[in-house]
């Protein structure tokens, strides 16, 4: 075979790209949209650490279909426009087979239309119930949604604490409003009409009007859906300073390490629903121990770890990276023991259907009970 100079030049020019493409296809690429900067960068860091731990574990066990998992991370800058931009960057990479989305419902709502257009599975942690009920078949939730947190909060206030004069404080963003919209009907089912429903805008330096409203409402139990931890901590301190001693049952931000570190004793004695509790199951404890060994701190969540494990299990089960087949495999997952609890995916894409209740006992988070729903 005679190789002309022109053909040799073309071959030389194309070969590196061909090798590049072959290398690119040698890994199983997962896109990650995480808040690496901005107001929620702290939980973003923990989420990313958890993902890397999961990827290392999967790769140590031989990868997925013989390929190591590779995480391609984009920063959402803790904002909706940042998240949309981050997702659009990742969406251009056709080698990505699935995504790990956000823990923030408002961010997920912003990205959801583009996720629907792209048509690849996204594991996410936002708890606004509507996210899996708006006809988007590509969203799979790895935390229990707020309809469950709301049911657990309502159940715990009325049946365990025997308190019925309920005040509700919530952020007016998608998460807080979703929580409010889920809690009110659950309280109504128990014959409880809240004495106060009080929204607030995120990032407030002062919560006096909200605290005074709680104080004047005559509530005997306070419920809450706070999005940002510093907001929750400022509210907690002002609540105690202004003499409100009402029992408080809140969404997970009330017991997060960040909030407890800021509010300190202002949160002692408060209750919270918590999706991730170290001593609630063996998987959570094992993950927490591995995380501590790697990062010298405790994790506050395991949903990204579970999300990657479930996504890769579905690819293995489907024996394919075809999005439709992965979707079917995720929906077929039942009784999967994850760090956040037992996953049983329903037709909407919700994997978990219950919550834990924890109490802050002098800064030690104690597991009280798990409430699971089957309906």
């Amino acid at each position, binding site marked *: 075979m005679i190789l002309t100079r022109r053909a040799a030049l073309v071959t030389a020019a194309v070969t590196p790209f061909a090798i590049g493409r072959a290398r690119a296809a040698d890994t199983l690429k997962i896109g990650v949209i995480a808040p690496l900067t901005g107001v929620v960068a702290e939980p973003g860091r923990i989420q990313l650490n958890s993902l890397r731990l999961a990827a290392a574990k999967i790769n140590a066990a031989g990868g997925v279909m013989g390929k190591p998992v590779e995480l391609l991370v984009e920063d959402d800058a803790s904002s909706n426009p940042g998240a949309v931009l981050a997702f659009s960057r990742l969406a251009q990479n056709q080698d990505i087979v699935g995504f790990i989305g956000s823990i923030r419902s408002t961010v997920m709502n912003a990205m959801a239309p583009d996720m629907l257009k792209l048509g690849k599975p996204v594991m996410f942690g936002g708890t606004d119930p509507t996210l899996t009920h708006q006809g988007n078949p590509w969203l799979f939730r790895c935390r229990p949604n707020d309809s469950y947190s709301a049911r657990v909060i309502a159940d715990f206030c009325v049946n365990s604490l025997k308190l019925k004069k309920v005040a509700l404080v919530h952020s007016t963003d998608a998460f807080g409003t979703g929580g409010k919209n889920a809690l009110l009907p659950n309280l109504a089912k128990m014959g409880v009409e809240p004495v106060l429903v009080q929204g*607030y805008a995120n990032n407030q330096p002062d919560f006096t009007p*909200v605290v*005074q409203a709680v104080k004047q409402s005559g509530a005997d139990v306070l419920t809450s859906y706070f999005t940002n931890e510093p907001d929750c901590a400022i509210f907690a301190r002002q609540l105690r300073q202004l003499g409100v001693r009402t029992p408080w049952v809140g969404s997970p931000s009330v017991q997060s390490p960040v909030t407890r570190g800021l509010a300190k004793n202002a949160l002692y004695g408060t209750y919270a629903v918590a999706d991730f509790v170290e001593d609630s199951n063996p998987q959570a404890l094992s993950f927490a121990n591995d995380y501590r060994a790697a990062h010298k701190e405790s994790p506050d969540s395991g949903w990204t770890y579970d999300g990657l494990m479930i996504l890769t299990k579905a690819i293995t089960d489907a024996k394919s990276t075809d999005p439709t087949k992965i979707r079917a495999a995720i929906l077929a997952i039942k009784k999967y023991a994850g760090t956040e609890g037992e996953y049983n995916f329903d037709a909407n894409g919700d994997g978990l259907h219950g919550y834990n209740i924890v109490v802050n006992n002098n800064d030690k988070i104690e597991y009280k009970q798990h409430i699971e729903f089957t309906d």
Partner: protein
Amino acid sequence: MTNFLQLLFNGLGIGAIYALVSLGFVLLIRAASVVNFGQGEFSMLGAYLLVIFFNIFGINYYLGMALSVVIMAGFGVIFAYTTYWPLRFRGGLPVIISTIGASIFLENMVLVLYGPSSVAIDGLFESDGFEIGGVFLATQYLAIIVIATILVVFQYLVFEKTLLGKKLQATSQDKEMASLLGIPVVFMILITFAYSSAMGGLAGMLVAPLLFVSVNMAGIIALKAFAANIIGGYGSIPGAILGGLALGVIETMGASYISVPYKDAFAFAMLLAFLMVRPQGMFGEKISEKA
């Protein structure tokens, strides 16, 4: 009545914070004709310095504050040389854009160096506060109100009653003429930046125990402080303090008696109302008066 008084006290407290930050704006507007959108970042840097001295190195709280103020004054000089000096003949807008750029740079620098976590820090006093007639008076708010009052009096006296103040104002009005009169223009500008940065840092240290120390701690406060500056009268010292206090009280009362979610909207609605009805602000526009 107790509820009203509680809201009034906390409204004044948060208003004093706006006033304190607003004073930093006023200083640069009056002495160097610069609107510094990095003023909030001065506060953030001051608070982080206190965290480093007190939380990390365990240095005495008050000594830590004093050291932080000195460092912030030095930082103000660096800020002036890098952000203002190269653009000093280009008019107001390039300098404003330069300060916005510097604020983004400072935010991200702290993010890289310190990380995104919010940090709690002790207040000036051991006790959170005390109660009088059912109204809780937070000691940190009281301290902020007192310090803001002292600083406003000090700043007013410097500008209106001292030769240094006259030189600073002359520099702001016409640098060329000031130079011909023998005023060391460069030195005046550097003093102003140093003082403004030190005061911004002090404001940050005072609010840190209330709002926690984070990269974003001063963003909304700086915006409202700027609004307070417009409401009080652009470049007016009494205007900054009264505008800040009015803003704090009105947004707190508005949130409590009308709507909490629209709390921030009350502040900016007040700004819009002033811009439409009395654009010169409560005390008149100091800069336009001079022109």
